[in-house]
């Protein structure tokens, strides 16, 4: 086991897959000698060279389009979109082309490709560099979507994404890049579509994703210490495929569900999970499902405003405390 930052674990995951499979190629803006704007790809260019680690112009449509064309003809590209907000610039490629190609061609074309991107708030970057847009991707049939919360997970889920025969979008969280955690040595690979129970509890279930996972864990600590409430905390990790089995069985045990998400309130992934639990786990519920989200607003930049927008440990604790009665 080594202590790695989340950003170094990203590079470790990419390096692991490039080393084992010559078909894996990597392209994006500033990912080469510069090592990426978030320094999440440091060392890859030196190790694998410009043939496999390719700097591109500022051409998001070409980056994603080229990844698609390469994937349909025998390569396994990883494409980086610097900030997830820029998905807007290449949304046709992601939503209309990549997502639909296998289906429209009746299974003739496979697209084994990965799109990695930096998602989420916390850096005071304002409304065009701070969004969480995993719900955009989740709404399109044909895309797999993961959002890891720990260094170990980000490494092993990137590896799983590269090995998956379908297009996978990996949302890395900007505010998680500097955090450290234990990462198993050697080759690691995870399974897409699996949630993880990070803390067992009997009184309520808290389902969280990405940056909201450490916050939910901290909130659960406090609720336990201060109120004697035992929260079960689930890291959803993968939105498509979605591990509804783990979520439903947890709610079956705790009878209460909270979702904590960084999306604006309307149509966030928490709404989908709430609806599934309401449809299929209704009789095990003792109380309404509660969604903890950002308000339905673009993200503000100032410290005080951004902090108050994103669900905080305090907000999670306060919400659970109030509604647990």
């Amino acid at each position, binding site marked *: 086991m080594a202590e790695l930052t989340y950003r170094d674990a990203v590079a470790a995951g990419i390096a692991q897959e490039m080393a084992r499979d010559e078909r894996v190629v990597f392209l994006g803006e500033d990912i080469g000698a510069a090592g990426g704007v978030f320094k999440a790809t440091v060392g890859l260019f030196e190790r694998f060279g410009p043939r496999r680690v390719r700097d591109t112009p500022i*051409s998001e449509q*070409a*980056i994603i*389009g*080229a990844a*698609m064309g390469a994937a349909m003809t025998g390569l396994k590209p990883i494409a980086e979109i610097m900030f997830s907000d820029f998905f807007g610039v290449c949304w046709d490629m992601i939503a209309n082309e990549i997502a639909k190609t296998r289906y*429209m061609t*009746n299974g003739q074309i496979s697209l084994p490709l990965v799109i990695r991107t930096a998602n989420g708030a916390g850096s005071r970057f304002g409304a065009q560099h701070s969004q969480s847009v995993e719900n955009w991707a989740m709404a399109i049939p044909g895309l797999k979507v993961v959002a890891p919360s720990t260094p170990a997970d980000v490494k092993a889920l990137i590896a799983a994404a590269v090995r998956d025969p379908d297009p996978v979008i990996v949302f890395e969280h900007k505010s998680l890049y500097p955090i450290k955690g234990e990462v198993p040595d050697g080759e690691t690979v995870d399974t897409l579509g699996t949630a993880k129970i990070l803390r067992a509890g009997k009184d309520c279930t808290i389902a969280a994703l990405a940056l909201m996972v450490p916050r939910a864990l901290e909130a659960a600590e406090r609720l336990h210490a201060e109120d004697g409430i035992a929260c079960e905390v689930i890291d959803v990790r993968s939105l498509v495929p979605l591990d509804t089995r783990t979520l439903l069985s947890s709610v079956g045990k705790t009878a209460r569900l909270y979702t904590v998400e960084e999306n604006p309130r309307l149509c966030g992934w928490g709404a989908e999970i709430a609806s599934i639990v309401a449809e299929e786990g209704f009789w095990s519920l003792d109380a309404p499902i509660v969604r903890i989200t950002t308000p339905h607003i673009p993200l503000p930049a100032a410290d005080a405003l951004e902090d108050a927008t994103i669900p905080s440990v305090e907000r999670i604790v306060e919400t659970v405390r109030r509604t647990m009665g």
Partner: protein
Amino acid sequence: MTALDQPRPVSVADDDIGREKRLRMFRLLLELRLTEKRAYDLFLQNLVKGTSHLSLGQEAVAAGFALGMRRDDYTFCTYRGHAHTLARGVSMTGVLGELMGRECGVTGGKGGSMHLTSVEHGAMGSYAIIGAHLPVACGAAWSAQYRGTDQVTVCFFGDGTTNIGTFHEALNFAVIWKLPVVFVCENNLYMEYTPIGTVTAVEHPAADRAAAYGLPRVIVDGNDADAVFRTASQAFARARAGEGPALIEAMTYRHSGHSRADPAQYRPKGELEQWLQRDPIKIYRERLVSLGFAETDLGAIEADTERRVNEATEAAKASPPPPLSLIEKDVWADGGAAWRN
């Protein structure tokens, strides 16, 4: 100035192409023409649903390029892609069946007229969002370059496409990575219903912009299949030799409207008649006759193509609708559509 700058002048006496290839070209031109005419008849009979975009009058571009391609090369085309798909050797039954929404269609009825695809023939898809396939073609060319296969990727699009961002992104990308991709603008003078000249800053929307990407200005007579074939062959040779991409503007004209719903009344009087004089099939037939090909041989090819289109039509009509089990098939590589455990 490069060789590509000046396509060789075509003279009827100049028979570098050879008898066998010329007959193949004639056969292909007819196949494209007659299949599309049949598609139109089937639409009038309400057997072809949805929309369809014919390329009647533009056949020489598809045929000229296809004849210069290797079996393992890739083509990318647009919603106006029946001819490009057929030209790679995809069956008429597969194409007509797809237009009629039958099980025998090339994508089992899931893609439709605008998404004809046959990977087996290197026909890597028809794309209905303007310009989307240009960057994708770059990716296929990159993959060929990376794998060291010397396959060429050919990407067809219309004049209207030169005004969307992907055109510019893809060209720059292809040039800086020296990709073996040949971009072919079929300038049929109209985007949808609007003359291209009224919405474009330069006269030749593709060729006049080539210099901005460090590429030579290439314009070819898109109604002359031989001229297209020669220009294509030069571009392919360069691409296979690692000399990078080409951008070719083929001047042509569509005989019918933009799509089946369009009577094309926006065209000035007499324009169509002028272009009909330059019908690529008429030109080619006359050239074959003047080169000494026998009327009877040409007539036999015409009759045979007609017969094959009839047979394909009957085969497609006899094919059942796709099974409903296709609805939830092939969202994912496991063959299914499940998004949860």
